[in-house]
């Protein structure tokens, strides 16, 4: 037997053990998929590659993310017990700053994945809450598990947290905000958020 036919034989035998990836689809997954498709099309759009288009490109990505992310929920969860102590205007200011901070991170990450792809693995729905498990596959083949937590509001699914490699973005910020709020003040937190955003990457 030739080496090649042997290999096919092995593959054939292994087919019983090898598992075709099942394509999961659902409302929540579609929601994420629409956003990620949009972002990938923006990243790979040749007309947006020019340096002078950078601002426009970033704005387009931000708009795409805005379409599915519930920033108020992000903020509320990140501040946790400190949220209810804030006035409406303080909440508004915080939401705006926190959103900018997360978007910057998200943008940086999405830049790294040009030439890569997103694979959707699983969707779990429990009433008003859902989890969409996906993985980012970079052009070099590195896989990064990314889970989206969603909640249903006004008939649509909204992302309220993102888990990257098992690490919740919201929880990670919550521990930082909590640390600052306990040692210092809310004003100091706002100041530090502003500084961070101004400083850029």
């Amino acid at each position, binding site marked *: 037997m030739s080496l090649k036919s042997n290999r096919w034989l*092995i*593959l054939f035998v*292994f087919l019983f053990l090898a*598992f075709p990836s099942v394509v999961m689809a659902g409302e929540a997954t579609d929601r994420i998929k629409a956003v990620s498709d949009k972002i990938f099309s923006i990243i790979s759009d040749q007309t947006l590659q020019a340096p002078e288009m950078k601002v426009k490109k970033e704005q387009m990505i931000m708009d795409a993310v805005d379409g599915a992310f519930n920033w108020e929920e992000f903020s509320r969860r990140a501040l946790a*017990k400190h949220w209810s102590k804030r006035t409406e205007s303080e909440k508004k200011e915080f939401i705006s700053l926190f959103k900018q901070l997360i978007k910057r*991170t998200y943008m940086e990450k999405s830049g790294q994945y040009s030439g890569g792809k997103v694979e959707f693995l699983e969707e779990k729905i429990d009433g008003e809450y859902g989890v969409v498990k996906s993985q980012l596959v970079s052009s070099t083949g590195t896989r990064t598990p990314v889970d989206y937590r969603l909640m249903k509001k006004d008939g649509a699914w909204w992302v309220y947290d993102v888990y990257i490699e098992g690490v*919740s973005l919201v929880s*990670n910020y919550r*521990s930082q905000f909590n640390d*600052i709020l306990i040692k210092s003040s809310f004003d100091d937190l706002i100041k530090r958020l502003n500084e961070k955003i101004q400083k850029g990457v």
Partner: protein
Amino acid sequence: MKKFRLLIVFYITCLVFCPGLLFAESTNDTLVQVPESDSQIADKVLKQASQPDSQSVEEQPVTPANGGLDEFPDYSEEDEYPDYSESDEGSAIISDPLEPINRAFFVFNDKLYFWFLKPAARGYSAVAPAPVRKGIKNFFSNLGFPVRFVNCLLQAKFSAAGYEFERFYINSTLGLAGFIDMADREFGVKAVDEDFGQTLGLYGLGHGFYINWPVLGPSSALDTLGLAGDYFLEPAYHMDLEFEYKAGLKGLKTINSTSLTSGDYETLKNSALDPYVAFRDAYIQYRQSKIKE
């Protein structure tokens, strides 16, 4: 050619035994936690074995390591916004009595990364093309087989242990001593990441407190114990090598993996208001999610 026939026999053996093992596992009590990917695979295999009554093993809520919790008696997040996922893994709080020392070592490690490791990885990338680096990563990963295999067994994850064994077998032969991840590439059998820290965590040991080791980086009392345990399973420990060579191997492994993951450290650091707290939290969350798998 004999090798190929052997391989076929081996697969058929797997085919016969695996569904049995998997089924036995899925009926186990909740103490046995099948990793996510594993349970997916298990589901599919079970379906093929026409046993559709498979069910995903119930997720056990992670008990956050204590410390700090009593500091916030008015923490009402869960009551206000009921969410099954939040209560499961939302808060990964760890006590940090060594914070001043840990912070000092955080600065030290940060400098070490930017002044030494990153430039070294960059220079190394210039010499070694990406496929070579990937191969070296696979080689080191293959050597980690004893650690993963033994810990799979210690955690009673028998099917995962089976997959690990398969991977080691395929990659050490077809994968040319581990340089090519044939098991994943051709057969879709992915690595199972288990270590002694996770084993102890599954047995119910808490993280204890956070330790940020110089050079080694974020860890906990639990994971330090785990690292020490796993050390005896590493091939390097059993090799009759001078310390310099062992250190050299470790260095190559670190520089090689840094060259492949370049950017992750910077991303988390740049997005954080307090990088030290961000890394501490990310580490504990990451480890908790690993134990839960």
